[in-house]
């Protein structure tokens, strides 16, 4: 039985919620996020179409060592007063497959990988 609670939020300020991010008030059961990115910054604005593929770099193809969780733990929940109260939450930025979640959930599985390449002109 999913462990349920009621979420009560008084005031929240989120300045920016971008690039596949989620903001949830309330319960959920599965949270799955992913993300990739590469970010190639050049000194001068030159763009070439399909220049880089994720498969070109090992960090995107190698497996992330995330063993599945098998603990023999049995949960027994008795909800006496299952309330979540949030007074004031002030968040400046949420980005790249991130989640703000006020409430219960069951399984969370997220990934990311970034990279960054800077391409400068030779100084002669």
């Amino acid at each position: 039985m999913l462990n349920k609670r009621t979420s009560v939020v008084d005031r929240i300020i989120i300045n920016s919620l971008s690039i596949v991010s989620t903001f949830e008030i309330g319960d959920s059961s599965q949270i799955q996020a992913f993300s990739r990115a590469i970010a190639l910054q050049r000194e001068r604005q030159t763009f070439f179409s399909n220049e880089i593929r994720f498969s070109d770099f090992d960090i995107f193809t190698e497996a992330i060592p995330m063993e599945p969780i098998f603990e023999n733990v049995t949960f027994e929940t008795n909800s006496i007063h299952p309330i979540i109260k949030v007074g004031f939450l002030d968040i400046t930025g949420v980005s790249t497959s991130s989640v703000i979640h006020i409430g219960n959930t069951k399984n969370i599985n997220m990934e990311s990988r970034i990279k960054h390449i800077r391409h400068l002109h030779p100084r002669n």
Partner: protein
Amino acid sequence: MNLQIYNEELQVGNMQVEAVSSSSIVLIGDAETIQLSSIFDTPAESLIIGPFVPLNPQG
């Protein structure tokens, strides 16, 4: 192992978060399993000084 959970009230008065990025989570509440991950990686070819021609990285 049998975990007994008694859900009383969970209260957060005031919380200020600067940034939440690259598959991160700010969770106020319970969860059973959490698996996060991240890789940033800036190896040698993270800085290339050369003419602006399409890069063909070896990986």
